[in-house]
């Protein structure tokens, strides 16, 4: 009998998160994490972060105007999401939680469609198979198992795709991510567990989630390497994820990445963060803003100018406008769709209930009391 792990020290995360960009944009080359991005791709990472923030802000506005029931902002986490999602190939899959607007936009999921869950128009608007992007998963960490199973399924099929799942620091306390990492380790499934450590699970800070030296240290317990990265550094996030993805694609199994970031907004629009964190803390976190950092880097590389900014801003505005148009006063569909897609073969189920709703709808049309 032997266990799969090689030298346990190979599984431990580095003492410090991988970091390539200082907040002022200074780039530190790291031979373990070379950048394989051309100038256009560097600008693209920046563009996607700016668009994400714009749409994110628009979503908050729409909630304030009563157009969304609630919204979970990803402000401050744009680099963690976009750097990681951009490291995947088009055939690779993502299983998100509910805060991954940035990753969704990388996958070209329609931004307004993404928000229909929050409006309550539909529970989901996108076809997962059209974007290789799973449904948003609200029960914390549960999607990690779907990702592990999907990756096992790809491996059983000798299909060299990689699956990535997102969850948060709070998610690492739930049982399902642990079971997912157990399965992934045992079956050597090509899956990346990407944790956005944004420091809070609603109001509860990281120190109440774990006594581990870091979240990435947990990975060793499953025979999985744990990596840590500065999640507000889009280049480092990209490079670390890229390395883990290629490792998985070559058959070396799963990886766990802890991206250190900070949730700049409330947990959701229903939350009041002034009850659990200070303005000083927010001001401090704002200094590590991922977008400003990338802009500084592009400027230093002479890849940024006002024309670029104007073009991106115009596109971000257009996207936000489209989101507003798609969401504002959007009608729900046919109420009778309630009974659709519950069963592939609904034989015997709820026929009378459908008829009842039909009658209620007819009564409403006739102006009768329901």
């Amino acid at each position, binding site marked *: 009998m032997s266990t799969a792990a090689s030298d346990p020290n190979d599984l431990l995360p580095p003492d410090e998160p991988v970091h390539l960009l200082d907040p002022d944009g200074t780039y530190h080359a790291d031979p373990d994490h070379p950048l394989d991005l051309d100038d256009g791709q560097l600008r693209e990472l920046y563009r996607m972060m700016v668009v994400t923030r714009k749409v994110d802000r628009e979503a908050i506005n729409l909630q304030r105007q009563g157009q969304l029931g609630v919204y979970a902002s990803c402000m401050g986490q744009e680099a963690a999401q976009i750097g990681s999602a951009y490291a995947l190939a088009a055939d690779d899959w993502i299983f998100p939680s509910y805060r991954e607007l940035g990753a969704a936009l990388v996958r070209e999921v329609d931004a307004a469609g993404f928000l229909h869950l929050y409006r309550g128009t539909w529970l989901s608007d996108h076809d997962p198979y059209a974007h290789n992007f799973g449904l948003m998963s609200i029960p914390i960490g549960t999607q990690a198992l779907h990702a592990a*199973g999907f990756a096992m399924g790809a491996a059983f099929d000798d299909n060299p795709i990689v699956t990535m799942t997102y969850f948060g620091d709070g998610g690492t306390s739930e049982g399902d991510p642990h079971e997912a990492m*157990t399965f992934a380790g045992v079956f050597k499934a090509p899956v990346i567990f990407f944790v956005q450590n944004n420091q809070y699970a609603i109001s509860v800070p990281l120190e109440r989630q774990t006594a581990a030296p870091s979240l990435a240290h947990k990975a060793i317990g499953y025979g999985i390497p744990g990596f840590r990265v500065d999640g507000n550094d889009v280049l480092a996030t990209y490079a670390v994820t890229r390395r883990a993805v290629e490792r998985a694609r070559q058959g070396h199994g799963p990886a766990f990445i802890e991206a250190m970031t900070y949730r700049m907004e409330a947990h959701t629009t229903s939350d009041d963060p002034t009850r659990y964190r200070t303005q000083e803390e927010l001001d401090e976190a704002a200094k590590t803003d991922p977008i400003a950092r990338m802009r500084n880097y592009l400027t230093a590389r002479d890849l940024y100018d006002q024309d670029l900014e104007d073009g991106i801003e115009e596109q971000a505005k257009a996207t936000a406008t489209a989101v507003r148009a798609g969401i504002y006063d959007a009608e729900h569909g046919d109420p009778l*769709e309630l009974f659709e*897609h519950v069963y592939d073969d609904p034989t*015997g189920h709820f026929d009378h209930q459908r008829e009842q709703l039909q009658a209620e709808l007819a009564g409403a049309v006739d102006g009768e009391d329901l």
Partner: protein
Amino acid sequence: MAVTLAQAINAALADEMEADPKVLMFGEDVGQLGGVFRVTDGLQERFGDKRCYDTPLAESGIIGTAIGLAMYGWRPVAEMQFDGFTYPAFEQIVSHLAKMPNRSRGTVKLPVTVRIPYGGGIGAVEHHSESPEAYWAHTAGLKVMTPGTPDDGYSMMRAAIRSDDPVIFLEPKRRYWMKSDTELPVTTEPTHEAVVRREGTDVTLFCYGPMVRTCLEAADQAADEGWSLEVVDLRSLSPLDTAAMVASVQRTGRAIVVHEAAMTLGIGAEVAARIQEGAFYHLEAPVLRATGFDTPYPPAKLEEYWLPDVDRILDAVERSLTF
């Protein structure tokens, strides 16, 4: 040829794995050991350890990965080793397996079969004798079925695997060794239909799974008393075959629902409600229930006092007839 329920289900698994290379069978101890009840005996040897494999001991993981495998395009059959160990998987079953096809507006199909040996009567240690069927039947998006005969064990198992809906397949473990004289393969009635196992004129016993045989024994004994009992095997607990239930009560005028599970808010409550809605003027007596008690499942030495048996059923029959 004499076939036990366990052998019939095993044969169905093997035949479906043979017919469809996308079918996977996995769970705890289902590989080399062949399952603690030997229901998966020989499958790993025949189909290899990629088609039939042992998982880590983690029920939520078994169901959660089944969902991912199904999304990829496999057709998973997942075994929960015992009824009382399905609860760690409750969230994956209720929040994802049952809902995802609906949440995705039909873009995701989850053709997952969850096999669960269930029920008591084998003298097992605690947590090994539960009847959790009402939880699943209460959950929209799941189909719930349970065979009461070896023939149904074979035919319904194959239908469950072929279904594009998630199916909770409840196997009455005390009947695993029950035999019938059957030539496999056999095709029985469609899974959503209830079946009259014995025709009668005085009272209908509605039952399923482990209680089908008990009700047939009760009907035999009742005949000695001069009572003619009809026995209806519900087979499908979601959906319920309301038409068959109503038709039987229209013939007999009296109904008793029999199940091992505790009485309150069990399947019997739903059956009784549907009968009074659909056959109110045919009823000669209230619909009665002969079930387990509203207490935790008892220690093995007490289970004979807890489980409904022929006496409890016939007592209910007498109360119905003398109402």
